[in-house]
């Protein structure tokens, strides 16, 4: 059983339309990609779609009430709302440095949640 499918690449703003042929757990990338990153994306997208998750975490005593965060690796699409639920429970104290691990192994995914902004302590 094979299934031909068109995948729009999200790696860069170009949005190449990549044709793939899915044979069970094997994927042939047929055409449409302008770079190598597209091949990798299309294979993942066909078998195990994942997204980098970005959201925010509550901050206490900070110059801003939130610090923006991202997942250290792309999260499986069907886990996104589980991960968001975990992130919503967390509150951290200012100051926060950019690149700090806020949650380790979030929702059992093996993926960490990392700050993407520095928040100074409120004076």
């Amino acid at each position: 059983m094979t299934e031909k499918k068109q995948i729009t690449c999200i790696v860069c703003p170009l949005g190449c339309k990549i044709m793939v042929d899915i044979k069970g757990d094997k994927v042939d990338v047929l055409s449409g990609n302008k770079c190598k990153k597209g091949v990798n994306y299309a294979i993942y997208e066909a078998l195990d779609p994942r997204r980098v998750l970005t959201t925010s975490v509550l901050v206490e005593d900070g110059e801003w009430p939130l610090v923006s965060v991202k997942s250290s690796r792309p999260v499986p699409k069907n886990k996104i709302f589980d991960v968001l639920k975990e992130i919503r429970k967390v509150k951290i104290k200012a100051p926060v440095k950019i690149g700090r691990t806020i949650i380790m192994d979030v929702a059992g995914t093996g993926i960490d949640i990392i700050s993407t902004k520095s928040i100074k302590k409120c004076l």
Partner: protein
Amino acid sequence: MINLNVDVLVIGCGPAGLAAAISAKKNGAKNVLILDRNTWLGGILPQCIHDGFGVEETGSSMTGTEYAEMYINEAEKNDISFMNETMVLEFNKKRQITAVNKNGLHKINAGSIVLAMGCREKTRWNAMIAGGRPSGIFTAGVAQAFINLYNIMIGKNVVVLGSGDVGLIMARRLKFEGANVLGVVEIFPYASGLPRNVVQCLDDYDIPLFLNHTVTYIKGKERLESVTIAQVDKDLKVLPGSERKINCDTLLLSLGLIPENELSKGVGIVLDTVTEGPVVDQNYETSLSGVFACGNCLHVYDTVDVLSVDAKIAGKNAALFNSNQKFLFNKEINIRPGKGVSYVVPQKINCPGKTSLKFRVKTPEERPRIRCTLKNDDIYEKRLAYANPANMIVIDIDISSNMLQSDGILEVSIDD
């Protein structure tokens, strides 16, 4: 009155202003000052918590916030001066800037000026939507600031009008924060945002995209109660009988951006009627000598990557203007959009060499052929796989001194 003298003065501390200032410094300007009216640095980037920034520039995908910190750190390392919460009121042809902040009125003499004021969002009044004036109507960027900076949720049941990138990104963001996103309404037969955002913001979460549709009525007294959406024909006229009411408490507007050029207009800088930004040459110099323009106040970019590259060229030339390293040619070529092209930046070339042209097509095209002609001679030709109005096209052309001597008009057009 506080008097200051600087080599290069940059107006606006968003990504364009930061990139231009860093580049001016690296190209010999001793004294570089950025003025910004906000309390923070980075312009709109601190509220852009999503990723996808810097892919073309650095090869890796960053969030807007990470991209901002990278540039702010670089600017600080390069000893660039900042003045926050400072509003530029005007500047004159002698490049004297009047600005005001808590310390009082400032008169700043600048060797050269870089305009990096960014852009504003179009509002309900740009689209002339009839109906009541309830609360619950936000431009997408304002909603983004409420949610991502101030931790204020804006509503529960949301309709988005316009499929610009900020609108698409906010549709996903609202979904993440527990809102019910009822759909994105787009008057054109195609999304105006980037393809990757249609996929990862709408398709991923089964948010419907109503193409060839618009909002015709807003109902509500205190808070928004419903919007009426209707289908349009190919002339964008509403099809009678296609109206349908959607109950919602929030309407997000993602109708496009307008370059902010009150200061440019005030001093008489010539603007392009399509981009609504200054007319510039290959060095990003405006019609006023020593004043350069970059970023979204020049023309609205798709991505910050290309914007920063251009802003660096503007900053470099602002620095070189001070050291008189400018080659003056008496001849210039004017660049014009031809068939199928809505605009081209820069609008003129007055120096031989390689120049990169940025332009947008009017409608989506399969396998279009780009053609550049100068006085009826073909000087450039390239076939693309496809062209989309949401994706700015960049081409590099070589202008010889002979071409420059022709004093002709360079036309960029799309051929099938």
